[in-house]
């Protein structure tokens, strides 16, 4: 049927364009930003201080600090199977070695358990709220008779590990 007369309506008007292309995305963007802010990405609560760890002996750990921080749990899980099941015992990768280097002494010259509050392991584990269960079985202090071993970093163990590309 042919339209002879009557008012014609334009589908694309200025207000409709403004709504579709400008206003709606802008509102969506603002809303999203507000949501992110509310969820509070990355703001540390001022009540909790970062762990302040006592420094271990020697110049460095058995692997670079960043690697240890990120991966020590994986190294431990892997190494414990090598040691228990296969009898592989190395001076470098032993929990006894970790304790010997990282343990502190109190004013009386006695060892403080390495999982006590404020000590090496517990500081970060408290901060990260991860339960530390190694020391339910493993000793938290070096044996008093072998204490002198902690001062000795063997000549064949370099302070820094060799580069991975040598493998």
């Amino acid at each position: 049927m042919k339209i002879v007369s009557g008012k014609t309506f334009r589908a694309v008007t200025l207000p409709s364009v403004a709504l579709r292309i400008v206003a709606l995305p802008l509102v969506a963007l603002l809303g999203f930003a507000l949501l992110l802010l509310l969820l509070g990405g990355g703001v540390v609560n001022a009540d909790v201080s970062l762990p302040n760890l006592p420094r271990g002996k020697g110049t460095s750990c058995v692997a670079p600090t960043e690697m240890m921080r990120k991966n020590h749990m994986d190294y431990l899980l892997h190494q414990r199977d090598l040691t228990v099941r296969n009898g592989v015992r190395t001076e470098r990768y032993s929990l006894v070695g970790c304790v010997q280097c990282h343990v502190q002494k109190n004013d009386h010259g006695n060892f403080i358990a390495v999982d006590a509050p404020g000590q090496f392991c517990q500081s970060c584990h408290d901060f990260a709220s991860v339960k530390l269960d190694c020391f339910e079985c493993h000793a938290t202090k070096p044996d008093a008779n072998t204490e002198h071993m902690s001062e000795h970093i063997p000549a064949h163990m370099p302070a820094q590990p060799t580069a991975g590309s040598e493998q």
Partner: protein
Amino acid sequence: MRRLFLAATAAAGFAALSPGVRLIELARAGLGTKLGVKLDDAVDASPVTAKSRWGMLIDAAKCADCDACVTACNEEHGLTKTGRPQTDAQWIRKVTLEDNHTGNITSLPMLCQHCENPPCVDVCPTGASFKREDGIVLVDKHTCIGCRYCVLACPYQARSFVHENLREQKPWSPRGKGTVEGCTLCVHRVDKKETPACVAACHRDGNGAMVFGDLNDSQSELATNLKSAHSEQVRADLNLNTGVRYKNI
């Protein structure tokens, strides 16, 4: 593209399966790269093999009243007594036998026999109770769930369950609540080429009844002793092929 993919896969497969390349070494190399270190950097970082089989020969005639082995074991592993003998840990104990007819009294130390066919390993639901390549039967306490099936299964009652929270463990002998433990044949000493604490104490303070050595080494003192004099297993009828043998019982 497809051709490239197929060629690459074939090459990788060829490399992985070619003789002399073991996948475990590739995996260890991968781990070494991940750790950023050379893995075998220490004096003895290779796994134990079945080349040796550790065992013991105990001459019950020499034992008498002595319990140097028990004292030494308790001290070596930090097995403190709580005054409750029914639940205290017991890795080695003296057993005194009296013959009903003759009245003859024999005394001998009973410890984990480190069987070749250990019942404790057979029953373990998690695989925590295992036999190492060199014959030492151990509990991997990381895996042990404390079900105590091995405690039940052992014909020699060699295993104990830890009932209490422990502190002040010896660094070379981790022990913890909720796991099962038993004689390790002083694996921490054996791996350093020393003898178990009980054997050392028997020689030092006792009557020299215990001989430790490599059952596979025909030149060892243990093997020559076993070959020359009659010895037996306790409960030989079970066919466990124990690593600990006894004389004069």
